[in-house]
């Protein structure tokens, strides 16, 4: 069994679908933070069989986790302080997602205008529908 040490302050993101931790790493823009990150792939899980875990050692106010709810509701977010879990975050869908996903509508201005952020607005919370701010195209994972 692989051992990864405890973190003093930060987040442990548990129950990530196996194989998706790297995508999450980029979605959270962790490459921009100067902090210690452990990416654990294919850990054993009673709930999922296999899972990924991300451990991020950082100031807990420094990381915006809003996008997690959009990516996967089932991720457990443990907030760590002084090496202890002090909180488990409930994930809420963000009202706006910026530069995480791209508009796939070939007629959208984002397909040609340089430097334009890809912004999606939560249009329907119940059905988790996001639409491009500019062309209103529904975001689809496909």
């Amino acid at each position: 069994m692989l051992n990864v040490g405890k973190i003093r302050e930060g987040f442990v993101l548990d129950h990530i679908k196996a194989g998706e931790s790297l995508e999450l790493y980029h979605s959270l823009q962790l490459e921009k933070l100067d902090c210690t990150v452990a990416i654990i792939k294919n850990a054993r899980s009673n709930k999922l069989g296999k899972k990924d875990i991300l451990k991020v050692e950082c100031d807990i106010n420094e990381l915006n986790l809003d996008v997690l709810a959009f990516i996967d509701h089932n991720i457990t977010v443990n907030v760590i302080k002084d090496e202890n879990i002090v909180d488990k975050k409930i994930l809420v869908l963000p009202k706006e997602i910026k530069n995480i996903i791209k508009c796939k509508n070939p007629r959208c201005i984002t397909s040609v205008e340089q430097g334009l952020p890809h912004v999606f607005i939560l249009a329907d919370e119940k059905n988790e529908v996001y639409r491009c701010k500019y062309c209103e195209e529904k975001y689809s994972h496909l």
Partner: protein
Amino acid sequence: MRHLMSPLDFTVEELNRLFDLAGDIEQNMGSYSTACAGKKLATCFYEPSTRTRLSFEAAMLNLGGSVLGFSDAGSSSASKGESVSDTIRVISCFADICAMRHPKEGAPMVAADKSSIPVINAGDGGHQHPTQTLTDLLTIRSLKGRLDHFTIGLCGDLKFGRTVHSLIHALERYEGIEFIFISPEELQVPDYITDRLKELNIPFEEVIRLDNVMPRLDFLYMTRVQKERFFNEEDYVRLKDFYILDKAKMEDAKAEMLVLHPLPRVNEISVELDDDPRAAYFKQVQFGVYVRMALILTLLGLEGGK
């Protein structure tokens, strides 16, 4: 500063004020002839459109203002690769208000985000065409005296037809509206519109044939199947003649039903209908000038100063 991106940018009360102003302009055209003296309208048209551009220009000239601009992307800096964001920053130094048409959806919104003058969306790809919608609403209100409790049929290209999307969007806010969407399956209204109608509990039907629903309609809004919205010519040729309104179909319509069309027409409305008193599509064009005049005055904050 106000812009116009979608018909929903104005509340129902604001629209009523705009239409009242347009009505006053219609009655007292002469008294508005210097209302915009010294003001300039920039028409930034990245794709050709004679009608909408000339309607904007006529509106500004009627108000005593002047116009400048370009009528296709080839004669603008866009052909050199300039972004919309940069273009509008430059245009903001030349003009007091801008009407923008662009083949890419959302381009006028990008402009509005960076602009220091009011921007009017004059049509963006297959997305929105709010000033056509204001024209349509003013036409309905002027000819019928109200904007609620109608059954409205929309026929033709409902997938890419931006005038249709904008009109549905605007009519959602009036009571007792029922939509009947008449189109081939390939050109049905996008799901974001039908999703929203379901959410708002607004009744709508999607049908294939026009003749079956004619007797129920208070309005029939016809649209052209536009060649430039298709990815291949084969699809266009197969679908373009699908829905043609002629005298025979009109016999089933109510005596007071009105036919609207954003124009240009190709062959979807037979010319034999032009003299039918129910044909309102050329009146629409005149209402379009009045409503654009009212819009320019409103966005420039000059609505009280004729």
